[in-house]
């Protein structure tokens, strides 16, 4: 496959609908963010027990997905697979857009978002969080350079080097995001070393899910028919890898004595977590999309890819919700051999219900990503032209 040709997005109904939906959701998110920051976090479902809520679930999911979305480009440039080369440009754009969306949500959920400059000028290099700030901004820069080498024929010679750099960086970035939880030795849910590698594997499926939705919406049917089968097969592998690493995570927790009670809480309690981890993630987020992609069930390629992508994302958000919220709502032990009670919910399972404001803010990340992708599709030649 030599010298693929590309085109910009035309003013299709999908383009206009994306713009309208994107701006409406962005407006709603702005109202949510403003109200949360103006009133304070007491209007949210978050508390001194569950300190990271729905905005963090969605933001971390977007950030993890961002690194996975670059996977298609990496397969093309780093592993030199010709089939994926025409799809690579869009992959880099989706990666950058998802990361910007996720970071915007994290930023706007801060207690003091006005102190962004402080976050960028005061670094505690012992903090994995501080390293992640560098990793995220570095990823946007590297993926941007990589995109440039793909868009500008004069930069063609640097494409492979930029691709390798971006690929290496994304591996470190996702491991770093996982390590945000992995270093939390105080909490039983997060204290195992598998968090970093697990996030890398999960990112592959979730990132590709976003990519499939984008091409399902904006790529023409002829081009889609050329790529659909192979992308579907790749997606199936990624989903199964994600499911396998999730099972390993739960088994690791189970066989570590300290975390067995926590696993029972996640997988067998009267909370929402067993529903998410036994039902929504494996069934709706894994089995159903694989069945849909394989059988087709009479749907057009665009519908298959978009729908299965949405299902994978629903499953992924469920999994992250269980991990982030479940890990905080389970009580930490205070003294070994003793049960504890207090006015500060020691020893108690804490309930958390996301507020409307949090959902509004969190949805803004998706809106920002969608709008960035649509603008880039309109401005740059990212969509491959059918042979």
């Amino acid at each position: 496959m030599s010298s693929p040709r590309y085109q910009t997005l035309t003013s299709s109904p999908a383009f206009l609908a994306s713009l309208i939906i994107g701006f409406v959701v962005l407006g709603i998110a702005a109202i949510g963010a403003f109200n949360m920051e103006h009133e304070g976090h007491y209007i949210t479902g978050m508390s001194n027990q569950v300190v990271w809520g729905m905005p963090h679930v969605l933001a971390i999911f977007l950030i993890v997905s961002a690194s996975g979305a670059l996977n298609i480009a990496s397969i093309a440039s780093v592993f030199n697979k010709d089939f994926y080369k025409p799809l690579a440009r869009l992959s880099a754009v989706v990666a950058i857009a998802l990361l910007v969306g996720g970071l915007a949500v994290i930023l706007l959920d801060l207690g003091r978002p006005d102190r962004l400059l402080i976050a960028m000028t005061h670094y505690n290099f012992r903090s994995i969080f501080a390293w992640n700030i560098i990793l995220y901004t570095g990823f946007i820069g590297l993926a941007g350079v990589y995109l440039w080498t793909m868009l500008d024929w004069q930069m063609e010679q640097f494409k492979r080097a930029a691709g390798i750099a971006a690929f290496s960086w994304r591996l470190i970035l996702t491991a770093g995001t996982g390590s945000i939880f992995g270093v939390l030795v105080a909490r039983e849910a997060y204290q195992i070393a598998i968090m970093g590698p697990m996030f890398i594997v999960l990112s592959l499926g979730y990132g590709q899910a976003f990519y499939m939705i984008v091409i399902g919406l904006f790529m023409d049917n002829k081009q889609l028919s050329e790529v659909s089968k192979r992308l579907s097969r790749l997606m199936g592998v990624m989903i199964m890898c994600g499911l396998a690493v999730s099972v390993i995570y739960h088994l690791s927790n189970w066989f570590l004595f300290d975390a067995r009670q926590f696993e029972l809480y996640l997988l067998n309690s009267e909370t929402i977590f067993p529903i998410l981890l036994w039902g929504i993630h494996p069934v709706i987020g894994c089995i159903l999309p694989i069945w849909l992609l394989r059988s087709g069930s009479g749907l057009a390629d665009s519908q298959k890819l978009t729908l299965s992508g949405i299902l994978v994302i629903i499953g992924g958000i469920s999994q992250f919700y269980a991990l982030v919220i479940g890990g905080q709502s389970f009580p930490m032990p205070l003294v070994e051999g003793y049960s504890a009670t207090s006015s500060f919910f020691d020893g108690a399972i804490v309930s958390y219900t996301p507020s409307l404001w949090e959902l509004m803010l969190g949805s803004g990340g998706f809106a920002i990503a969608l709008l960035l992708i649509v603008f880039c599709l309109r401005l740059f030649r990212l969509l491959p032209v059918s042979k």
Partner: protein
Amino acid sequence: MKYIDQYRRRFLGTASAAFTGLSIAPGILLQTVHAKAVDEAVTSQYRWGLLIDTNLCDPGCTDCVEACHQENGIREIHGPETDAQWIRKVTLKHKKTEHILNMPVMCQHCAEPPCVDVCPTGASFKRADGIVLVDKHICIGCRYCMMACPYKARSFIHEKLSDQLPHAPRGKGTVEACTLCVHRIDRGENTTACTQACPNGAMTFGDLKDPQSQISKKLAEHGGRELRAKLKLDTGVRYQGISS
């Protein structure tokens, strides 16, 4: 003219004496007060800590909590889920013997504080004398320190506050915790509000590095247990009376 000269000399003499007195007085007075000067650096010569004897802690008593709240201007606002609690009374029940203990829990002022390690901006910091604090000027309110604290000792300010006390600055969107009454320590007072309020003397405040201090003597005599000792954080707050 003669009288004018005399008056002038007398006035200049009195004024010079007054000026000299005012210049020297602060130096003399500072030597008589043991407070640390505002610009004087904190040293690692001390390590401040607390020892809590759970045998002396009454079940229904919350005097330490109330004293802390009064000292630092903490009030109930939107309920226990979101209100700040720098110190709380915890009831422990032994899982086998069902023996019940009571104790106050606050920031444990770890020598290896996880909150300081994870803070992205360095707002969470440990002073040379072992007190773990939050710099409210550079706290961005990410709450990562709250995720990392093994003792749930930190609170996030969920709403606007007013009437804060000058020695305990607090603000919406930032994280806070027990300061070990750092304002008192810096004034040279060798106690905290909770220690002072405890009617049974269950709490002892002092310098863990001074073998002659009351806290060191009590620790040497009966020992003291760290909460979640497995994490090896070398806490500045120790407990007595908790059997294994």
